[in-house]
C-alpha cells in the first residue's frame, strides 16, 4: 500500500490544537533529589536534613550531634546560608568537613545545589552528612534534597504557635525538635502544648525537647534518628 499525499493528517490553517502535556514543573528538583539519594545509597552514606526557622538552633543542634557521633561516624556538614561561611567555620572547628552552600538570595536549598556539594566530597571518606537548610519554615518543604531523614527544629523563642502556623513542613519531618526549653518559662511558652501540636499534625514523627546549648536532649535526637 502506498501512502498518498491525501492520507496525511495535517493541521488546517487556523486549527486549534489541544495538547495534553501532563508535565510537572516541580518534577525537575525531585528527579535530582532521587539521583542524590541513589548516589548516597551507593556509597552507604546517611544524609539528614536539618530545617527550621532562623535562629531556632539548627547549627547548635548539629554541633551537639557531632560531639556525640564523631567517634562512630565520619561526618560532613552542608551548611546552607544566603551568604557568609560563619556557621561552616563554627562546624569545622569540631574537626569535621563543612561545606558552605551559599544560595545568594534563594530562601532554600535545592537538590541541584546539594548535588554540587556532594561532588565536592569523597563519599568513600564519609558515613554521615547533615544538610542544614536555610533558616525558613516554608520553602525548604517544597524542595526535597535526597536525604534519608528530616529533622525540623522549632524553638520556644519563636512563640507558642509556630508549629500550628507551619503545618506542612512538620508533616515532612521524621523528628521534630523543640529547642531552648530552658527559656520556656521566660517566654511563657508551654512546651507540652507545642509537643501536642507536633504530635497532632504528624503522629509519625518522634518529638524531642532539647536545650541544645547545654546538650540536653541531643542524645534522644540521635536515638530518634536511629544513628
Amino acid at each position: 500500500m502506498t501512502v498518498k499525499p491525501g492520507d496525511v493528517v495535517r493541521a488546517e490553517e487556523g486549527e486549534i490544537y489541544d495538547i495534553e502535556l501532563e508535565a510537572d514543573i516541580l518534577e525537575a528538583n525531585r528527579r535530582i533529589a532521587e539521583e542524590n539519594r541513589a548516589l548516597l545509597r551507593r556509597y552507604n552514606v546517611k544524609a539528614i536534613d536539618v530545617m527550621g526557622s532562623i535562629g531556632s538552633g539548627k547549627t547548635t543542634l548539629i554541633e551537639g550531634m557531632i560531639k556525640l557521633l564523631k567517634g562512630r561516624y565520619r561526618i560532613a556538614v552542608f551548611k546552607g546560608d544566603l551568604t557568609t561561611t560563619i556557621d561552616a567555620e563554627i562546624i569545622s572547628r569540631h574537626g569535621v568537613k563543612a561545606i558552605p552552600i551559599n544560595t545568594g538570595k534563594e530562601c532554600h536549598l535545592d537538590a541541584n545545589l546539594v548535588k554540587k556539594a556532594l561532588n565536592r566530597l569523597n563519599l568513600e571518606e564519609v558515613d554521615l552528612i547533615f544538610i542544614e537548610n536555610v533558616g525558613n519554615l516554608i520553602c525548604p518543604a517544597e524542595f526535597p534534597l535526597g536525604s534519608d531523614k528530616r529533622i525540623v527544629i522549632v524553638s520556644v523563642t519563636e512563640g507558642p504557635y509556630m508549629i500550628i502556623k507551619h503545618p506542612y513542613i512538620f508533616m515532612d519531618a521524621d523528628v521534630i525538635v523543640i529547642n531552648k526549653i530552658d527559656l520556656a518559662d521566660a517566654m511563657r511558652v508551654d512546651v507540652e502544648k507545642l509537643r501536642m501540636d507536633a504530635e497532632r499534625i504528624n503522629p509519625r514523627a518522634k518529638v524531642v525537647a532539647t536545650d541544645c546549648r547545654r546538650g540536653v536532649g541531643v542524645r534522644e535526637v540521635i536515638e530518634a534518628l536511629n544513628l
Partner: protein
Amino acid sequence: MHEYSVTTQIVSKVLREAESRRAKRVLEVKLQIGELTFLNPEQVKFWYKALVKGTVMEGSKLIIQEKRGLVRCLKCGYEGSFKYEDDPAYHIAFPTLLCPKCGGVVEIIGGRECIIENIKMVV
C-alpha cells in the same frame, strides 16, 4: 513562595511546545496546582500575565485547578483528602496525618504537583 521562578518555567515550557508545533497563538493553558505546594494561584496568574507579554502566549487564558492533598492510610487503606482538625483555640483548621476514618497514620500520596495539563493553541 516561588511563583516567579515556577511561572517562568511554565511559560518557557509552553513556548517550547508552541514553537515545536509552529503555533501562531496560544489560547489557553490548564494548570493543576496541588494543595501541598507553596504556590499561590493568584501570584502565579499575576506573573503569567507579566511574562507572556510580547509572546505567542499573550492574551491566553490561564486556568488553574487546585488539587486537594491526597493521603493513604497505612492501617485501614483509606484514600482521600486530609483530615483537618478544627481547634477553637486557634480559630483555624489545620491538616494532620491522622486518618479521618480510623485514626491511624496516613502517608501523603498526592498534592505536591504543579502540572501543565493541557494547552490549546492555534496553528
